[in-house]
């Protein structure tokens, strides 16, 4: 198979490969446990390389479409179908490529990290298989251009996520968190299904581009919009529907928590895709933009205030994840609110676009530093066995490298230069200030509170004299270090060279997201 056909088939392979890994993992372990670990990690490396390769090609040469089951994978519309696509089509544009990059990097880091931390548990086969299914589900969710297919991948990722949250039974408490997650995402999935059915009933198609082209914004469309956005916002952890987030994040194994963050980001991507590509300017931009902005501001503020009094490490970080999701919603919401003024030198060109760049850039940054923070918390809990902040202390003497990684993550989340959190937050502050100064003030305030909260965590985990009960504690095992180091390197690169990242990855993604006609044109080959 030469390189050209690899590019052509990469959207299918990037989903099929983790699925194949997941299905074959239970078989491998029958021969040898070590062999299975090598198989999983090697396969995940392949998936990562393939994902990055695909993203590179998309960003360099334009979107890739892939038609499943057709005799020619690039022929989106069969010649005898009367001008409509009939099969499932993957439409990988720059925004999808952006998400694929995040998933590939964090997926690799968590897969490598997971082995030592889960080594003592039974059922590691199922753990790996479910992790691969989660990765495959999220990859499919971001690549697909078909609404029903999106529902299927949504369900794969939520079921795999729920099963992994419940993985440590933990005297039933983890199962309780898993039940919560599973119930909420199932109800969300059913609403999504009903919305897809309504859209299909009106337009007779399931392809996003076709529906976007025919969209008339009738009453049923508005109904479907609510039914689609609510579950996706819920899965992303925005505030009125955030109650599952701290429970699921704090009880899941740390490697899974790091990836659940990415899974939430993928739901956020789906939300943006629905709002920008499926509905675009047919909906009342200003109203919907303000709804998103209000959701974002509430998430930011409630997340950070709930985080301050928390006593367990991962629960605190989970509330910060809600708060950081607010930044993305704020940035993209400002972009949506000004979207109708596009191309006229209006508000979109003045500040909306920058805000969207900031919001989308924050997605990759958040996935990296929040993943890193959860992984460091996992390493500390793995070595000490304590998750309460008040009982921890003095670990800076024995876990030096973990402490360095934690500092990198904490400074990045608080928006301190030269780390990547600063690079995206400054874009959001600047542009949101032009849109509405009060929102920018709230954003800066939340950032300060975040810093305060993480200073507290840092102090109670690493500072202070060496405690006698942690005398035996060593630094984290090497694979864990590798997982954390990968994310830390990405953070530092993103912080030192933010313009390279924004120009090459984020700007094309924002262009792809706001330019609805380009998305439609990839399916309908129009002049």
């Amino acid at each position, binding site marked *: 198979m030469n390189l050209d056909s690899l590019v052509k088939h990469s959207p299918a392979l990037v989903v099929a490969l983790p699925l194949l890994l997941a299905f074959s993992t239970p078989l491998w372990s029958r021969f040898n446990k070590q062999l299975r670990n090598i198989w999983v990690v090697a396969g995940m490396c392949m998936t990562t390389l393939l994902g990055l390769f695909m993203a590179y090609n998309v960003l360099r040469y334009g979107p890739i479409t892939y038609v499943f089951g057709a005799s020619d994978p690039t022929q989106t519309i069969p010649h005898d179908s009367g001008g409509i696509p009939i099969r499932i089509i993957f439409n990988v544009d720059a925004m999808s490529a952006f998400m694929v990059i995040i998933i590939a990097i964090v997926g690799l880091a968590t897969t490598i990290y997971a082995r030592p931390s889960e080594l003592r548990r039974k059922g590691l086969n199922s753990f790996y298989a479910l992790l691969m299914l989660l990765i495959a589900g999220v990859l499919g969710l971001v690549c697909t251009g078909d609404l029903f297919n999106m529902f299927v991948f949504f369900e794969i990722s939520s079921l795999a996520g729920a099963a992994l949250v419940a993985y440590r039974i933990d005297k039933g*408490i983890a*199962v309780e968190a898993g039940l919560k997650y599973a119930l909420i995402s199932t*109800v969300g999935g059913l609403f999504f299904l009903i919305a897809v059915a309504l859209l299909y009933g009106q337009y007779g198609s399931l392809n996003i581009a076709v529906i976007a082209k025919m969209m008339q914004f009738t009453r049923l469309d508005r109904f479907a919009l609510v039914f689609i956005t609510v579950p996706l916002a819920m899965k992303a952890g925005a505030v009125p529907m955030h109650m599952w987030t701290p429970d699921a994040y704090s009880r899941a194994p740390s490697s899974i928590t790091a990836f659940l963050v990415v899974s939430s980001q993928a739901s956020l991507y789906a939300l943006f895709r629905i709002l920008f590509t499926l509905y675009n300017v047919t909906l009342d931009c200003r109203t919907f933009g303000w709804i998103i902005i209000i959701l974002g501001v509430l998430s930011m503020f409630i997340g950070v205030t709930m985080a301050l009094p928390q006593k367990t490490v991962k629960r605190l970080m989970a509330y910060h994840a809600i708060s950081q999701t607010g930044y993305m919603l704020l940035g993209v919401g400002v972009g949506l609110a000004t979207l109708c003024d596009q191309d006229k030198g209006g508000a979109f060109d003045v500040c909306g676009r920058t805000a969207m760049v900031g919001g989308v850039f924050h997605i990759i940054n958040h996935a990296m530093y929040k993943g890193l923070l959860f992984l460091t918390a996992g390493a500390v809990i793995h070595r000490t066995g304590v998750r309460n902040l008040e009982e921890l202390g003095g670990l800076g003497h024995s876990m030096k490298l973990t402490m360095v990684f934690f500092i990198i993550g904490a400074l990045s989340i608080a928006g301190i230069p030269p780390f990547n959190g600063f690079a995206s937050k400054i874009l959001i502050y600047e542009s949101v200030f032009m849109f509405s100064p009060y929102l920018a003030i709230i954003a800066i305030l939340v950032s300060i509170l975040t810093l305060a909260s993480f200073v507290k965590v840092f102090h109670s985990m690493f500072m202070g004299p060496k405690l006698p009960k942690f005398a035996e504690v060593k630094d984290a095992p090497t694979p864990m270090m590798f997982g954390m180091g990968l994310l830390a390197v990405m953070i530092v690169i993103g912080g030192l060279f933010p313009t390279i990242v924004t120009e090459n990855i984020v700007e094309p993604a924002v262009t792809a997201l706001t330019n609805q006609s380009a998305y439609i044109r990839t399916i309908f080959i129009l002049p």
Partner: protein
Amino acid sequence: MLANFPFIAVGIIAIAGIVTMLLRVNIIRIIMGLTLLEAAGNFLLVAIGYRHNSIAPIFTSAPEEKIRPPAEMVLPTVQAMTLTSIVIGVATLALLLSFVMAIYRDYGTLDCRSIRKLQG
């Protein structure tokens, strides 16, 4: 109004499911409400694809007068989607019930007011 009766039935089933989920405290009953909601979704899908005076989209021993083009058959895509969503529903139900079993084993109760060890 009465011609759209299946859609009204979908609405009634969906609202019944949502009310069951909100009103009951036993987790098993909440899951039953979820199943009702899922049934509403499947029913909606099938109802959307119906065409008057049509047969099922199967050509084996189909009556000739129905399949002369344009064939009078109900829409196949929604039926395929319903099949998919039924299997997904079964899978979700199995996972949720196994969670409930594990919770009952450890907590000894199914009342969702007393399953609250997660706070704090």
